[in-house]
C-alpha cells in the first residue's frame, strides 16, 4: 500500500536532472550544492552515478523496494551506479542499492559488507538521522574503487585471496585435526605406557612379609612342625 498520497516517488519515474533529490529538506542548501558537485565529478571522471533520493517512499516490503531500485538504477544509468534512498519520516535505514557493469566481476559479498559498514558508520549517535552526505560520498568512493579494482584485476586478486583464505582455513583445520589427533595419540600412548611401566614395576617389585615375634614349639628352633598332609592314590603301575 503506498504511504505517499499524491506525489510519486522519484525512482518510479525518469532519471532526475540532478543527482540529489531532496523533497524533505533534510540537508542544507550548501551541503546539497557541495555534494552535487562531488557526485557530478565522480560521474564525469570515474563513470560512477550515485543518486540520492530524500523523500517519502512507498511503504513496500524491503525486497520489493530493492527490486524496484535495481530496475530504476539500470534504466537511469548505463555506467556503474548507486541509489541511496531515504525516507526521513520512516524508521528504516537508507536503502543503498548498486549496480552496473562492474558488478559482473565484483566480489559481491565484499561489496555488500562494505556498504553495510558504511550504513552503520553513517548513523549519527547524536541524532536519529543518518549522515546522508557522508554516506553518499563514501558509497561513491567505494564504487569507484571496485570499478578500478576490476580494471586492475584486483577482483581476481580478491577472489584469489578468498580462495587463499579458504585454503588457509582448510589447512588450519587440518592442522587442528592433526594436532588433536597427535594429542589424543600421545595421551593414549602415555596411558598405555604408564600401565605397562606399572605392570613391569609390579612384576619386578619384591614383596616382603612383616617380621614377627613368635614362640618356639616342641623345642624346635626353626619350625614348629605341621600335620597338614594328604594321602594320594598311588599311580597305576
Amino acid at each position: 500500500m503506498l504511504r505517499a498520497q499524491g506525489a510519486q516517488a522519484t525512482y518510479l519515474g525518469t532519471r532526475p536532472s540532478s543527482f540529489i533529490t531532496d523533497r524533505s529538506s533534510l540537508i542544507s542548501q550548501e551541503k546539497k550544492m557541495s555534494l552535487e558537485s562531488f557526485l557530478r565529478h565522480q560521474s564525469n571522471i570515474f563513470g560512477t552515478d550515485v543518486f540520492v533520493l530524500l523523500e517519502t517512499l512507498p511503504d513496500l516490503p524491503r525486497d520489493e523496494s530493492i527490486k524496484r531500485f535495481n530496475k530504476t538504477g539500470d534504466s537511469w544509468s548505463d555506467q556503474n551506479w548507486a541509489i541511496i534512498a531515504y525516507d526521513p519520516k520512516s524508521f528504516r535505514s537508507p536503502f543503498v542499492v548498486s549496480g552496473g557493469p562492474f558488478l559482473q566481476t565484483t566480489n559481491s559479498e565484499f561489496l555488500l559488507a562494505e556498504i553495510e559498514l558504511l550504513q552503520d558508520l553513517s548513523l549519527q549517535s547524536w541524532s536519529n538521522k543518518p549522515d546522508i552526505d557522508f554516506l553518499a560520498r563514501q558509497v561513491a568512493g567505494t564504487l569507484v574503487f571496485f570499478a578500478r579494482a576490476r580494471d586492475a584485476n584486483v577482483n581476481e586478486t580478491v577472489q584469489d585471496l578468498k580462495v587463499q583464505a579458504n585454503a588457509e582455513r582448510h589447512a588450519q583445520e587440518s592442522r587442528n585435526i592433526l594436532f588433536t589427533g597427535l594429542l589424543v595419540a600421545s595421551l593414549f600412548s602415555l596411558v598405555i605406557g604408564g600401565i605397562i611401566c606399572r605392570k613391569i614395576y609390579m612384576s619386578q617389585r619384591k614383596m616382603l612379609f612383616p617380621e614377627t615375634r613368635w614362640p618356639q614349639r616342641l623345642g624346635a628352633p626353626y619350625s614348629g612342625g605341621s600335620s597338614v598332609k594328604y594321602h594320594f592314590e598311588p599311580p597305576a603301575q
Partner: protein
Amino acid sequence: MPSPPPKLSSRMFQKSVHDCPYCSFELDRADLTCSRCQSHLETLGPLPKDGAVLLESIMDLAGLLQGDAEKVKKMIARSEKKFPQLKLIFCSIVCPENFTPNTLGWWMLNQGTNPQLTWTGLLLVDPASSQITFQAGYDLEIFIDRRKLETLLTECGQWFTLGEWSTGAEKFFQNLHLMLKNAHQESREIEKQALKLL
C-alpha cells in the same frame, strides 16, 4: 636413619592352628611338648651337630622328577625372586623307619644349615606311603592358611595319582605363589593398621 618398625606379634597374622606332627593333637602356640603324647623334636632323636644337610631347592632323592626338575626349579626360583625372604624346597624321599613324612620334613627343617630356615617351606613327597606334606618355618607358617594349603595339597596329590610328579609339583608351587601374594597384601594391611594404633 629411620628405625625399623617394631616386630609385631605373630598372633596378629596367624592364619591357622598347629597340630602335633606325631599325634595331630591341637597345640597351643608355645607348647614345649604335646600335651597328649608328650612328644617334642628330640623324640625323633638328637639333632645332628655334624653332617647336617644343606637343603637345596630340588632334593629328588626318590627320582620322581627325572628330566623335569627344571620346570619345578623355575617355579621355585620365581617365587624366591618375588619373595626374597623365602626359601622353598621340593623333596621326594622314601621315609626311613620311625619317620612319617610329617616328622621327617619337620626334622629336616630343624636340622638344616641354611640361613633363613624360619622362612623355609618344604614340600615333601613320599611315594612309598603315597603322602605329601608341607612344612614351614615359624616366620612363614603364620601367613599360610591351613585350609588353602590343604586344597593345594589335594590338587597336587591328584596330579601325583596320574603319575605327573613334575606337573603336580609345578602346580603346587605356582598356586602357592598366588596364595603368598594375597597373604602378603593382607599382612601389609594388618601391619599398617597395627602400626597406626601403636
